[in-house]
């Protein structure tokens, strides 16, 4: 029992600490990209305590539930959303010594659990009983369901090359350097089609985690706040937490599948479980940083353009890529 | 390019003396006072005639003349093709302030006429959406009349500061 609780607590701690850092980091990154400083006041050095102050503020806020809302679903949606992203962390191999649950269908489980996110978004949008929320919820559901297809197709490509659904096994086979000796033995360097797969995967996870240029569900200039419009205080904070957790989850998945997970980029140098954790988080956070960088650079797509990109470009491309990868594996 | 006097002469040939009067203040632009009944046909002529071609209605304002107990509507027209400008004016008695709408001729008149109705109370016949524009629909009175006294309460809220 205690062991299970500890197992469950480790990813939660990682998520919470990461969320505090990432929210502050996003604001700092936004600041630096926009020629300004970002938060500077709270806590002394570069406003490092800003997220903590924000959290305290959010806890104190009044919990407003609209009169005509569907009370139970309205209250439940944010927690379900967070639970879904949190549950998916169980199969992420954080280091060679730690993985929440060593199940054989790891990737499959992760994709299945994250598909619940879509439902919680619809739930929040519908339960608020607000037209903007409903429009946001429907948009977001359509978007997430659509972009799940290219995500799964690209993940399948990797699984095809790796030959295992277990993320730990996938990571372990990426250890060491490749035959040439200078590149790490990461999957992205093993097969040219996997580079294409990664690009598709990255675009899809941008859409799945509602980041610019695909942040239509909560695009503040059109739909006010999308499905979050009616939420305030801690429930809104849960949405934010879930969103940041989702970002990290998908980035870590990308790092595991394409960039060698907890493997050191320098072969055995700086290896071991502790360094493994460091490398893994570094890779994941780098992807998160790229997502933030994109957010503060690009405008956003319109909803029909978004669907066009998914169904007419990404999905055919990812399936063609899957077949080509399989051929490459057969030939070499 | 025609001067206002030339435009007046041109219009007089078309519509006769009765409907039109040429007026001028001590300073500023002269204007043509048009009979309220014929403002629509005059406007249509001004827009379509090859010698006039007034394709834009720059401004439409409502006025209140307390001494004469009349309301006025002023049309500032401009032709971008012939680069000429003219001011038309319509005056109607305050008890019966009906002016034909020119919305069908210049679409921009839509909102301007609503504003004139809202502010001085000229009613425009044939306007497709004849409602107040700036003030709430159930407001009393027309604020730009010189004798306007604001209502004390609006829906139970005092209008005093």
């Amino acid at each position, binding site marked *: 029992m205690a062991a299970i609780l500890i197992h469950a607590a480790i990813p939660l701690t990682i998520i919470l600490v990461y969320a505090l850092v990432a929210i502050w980091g996003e604001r700092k990154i936004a600041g630096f990209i926009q020629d300004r400083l970002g938060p500077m006041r709270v806590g002394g050095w570069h406003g490092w305590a800003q997220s903590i102050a924000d959290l305290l503020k959010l806890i104190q806020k009044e919990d407003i539930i609209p009169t005509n809302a569907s009370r139970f*679903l309205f209250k439940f949606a944010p927690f379900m959303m967070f639970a879904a992203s949190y549950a998916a962390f169980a199969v992420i191999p954080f280091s060679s010594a730690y993985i929440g649950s060593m199940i054989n269908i790891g990737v499959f489980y992760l994709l299945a659990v994250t598909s619940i996110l879509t439902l919680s978004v619809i739930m929040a949008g519908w339960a608020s009983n607000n037209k903007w929320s409903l429009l946001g919820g429907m948009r977001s559901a359509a978007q997430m*369901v659509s972009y799940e297809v290219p995500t799964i197709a690209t993940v399948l490509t990797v699984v095809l090359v790796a030959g295992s659904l277990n993320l730990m096994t996938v990571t372990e086979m990426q250890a060491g350097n490749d035959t040439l000796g200078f590149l790490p033995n990461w999957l992205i360097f093993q097969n040219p089609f996997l580079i294409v797969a990664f690009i598709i995967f990255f675009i899809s996870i941008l859409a799945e985690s509602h980041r610019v240029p695909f942040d239509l569900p909560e695009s503040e200039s059109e739909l006010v706040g999308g499905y979050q419009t009616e939420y305030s205080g801690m429930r809104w904070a849960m949405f934010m937490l879930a969103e940041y957790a989702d970002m990290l989850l998908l980035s870590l998945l990308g790092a595991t599948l394409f960039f060698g997970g907890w493997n050191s980029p320098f072969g055995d140098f700086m290896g071991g479980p502790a360094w493994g954790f460091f490398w893994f988080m570094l890779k994941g956070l780098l992807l998160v940083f790229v997502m933030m960088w994109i957010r503060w650079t690009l405008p956003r797509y319109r909803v029909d353009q978004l669907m066009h990109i998914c169904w007419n470009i990404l999905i055919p491309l990812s399936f063609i890529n899957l077949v080509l990868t399989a051929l490459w594996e057969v030939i070499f | 390019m025609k001067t206002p006097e030339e435009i007046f002469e041109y219009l007089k040939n078309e519509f006769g003396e009765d409907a039109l009067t040429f007026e001028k203040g001590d300073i500023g632009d002269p204007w043509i006072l048009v009979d309220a009944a014929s403002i629509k046909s005059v406007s249509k002529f001004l827009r379509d005639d090859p010698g006039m071609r007034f394709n834009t209605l720059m401004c439409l304002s409502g006025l209140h003349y307390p001494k004469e107990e009349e309301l006025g509507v002023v049309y500032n027209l401009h032709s971008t093709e012939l680069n000429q400008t003219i001011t038309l004016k319509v005056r109607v008695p305050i008890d019966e302030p009906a002016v034909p709408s020119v919305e069908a001729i210049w679409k921009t008149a839509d909102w301007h006429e609503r504003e004139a109705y809202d502010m001085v109370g000229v009613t425009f016949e044939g306007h497709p959406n004849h409602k107040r524009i700036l003030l709430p629909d159930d407001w009393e009175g027309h604020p730009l009349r010189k004798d306007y006294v604001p209502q004390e309460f609006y829906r139970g809220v005092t209008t005093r500061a």
Partner: protein
Amino acid sequence: MELTTILFYLFALVTLGSAATMVFSKNIVHSAFALMFTLMGVAALYVLLYADFLAATQLLVYVGGILILILFGVMLTSQGYTLSFKTITVNLIPASLISVGIAALLIFAFLTTDWTISEVAERTDTVYDLGMLLMGDYILPFIAVGVLLLIAIIGAILMSTRLSAENEGVS
């Protein structure tokens, strides 16, 4: 009691409770969300039966796919955009007859079956075994189902494009 047993009863309770909510709720969207809890509860029960692949498939296909379709269907019907989705009871007598019949059949089956409780060995390679079965013994049905689904997709695309083309012709 063991943790597994506690979990089993917990999930069974969730499954049954939400199933009842689904049936008895007056609000059709509430029913749909209750169905979600039922499906998730069933998925959890699959996990307890060492059928992890089946559980994940249940989540991915039923919760992540079919249920969302149901919700879309419900919300896009002409019931309006607000909370006023209502269900009404129709065909009361035939429906109750059928359900009583099915219940009787199930109870009969339950009572007459000779239940033997055997210790199941913990399986870890479910995916491998499944893959072997699908690509080996059951390759023909597997391919046949795949072709069937492909035909269905193509048919759906054809129908929707023809419909939209007709609409454009009208407008």
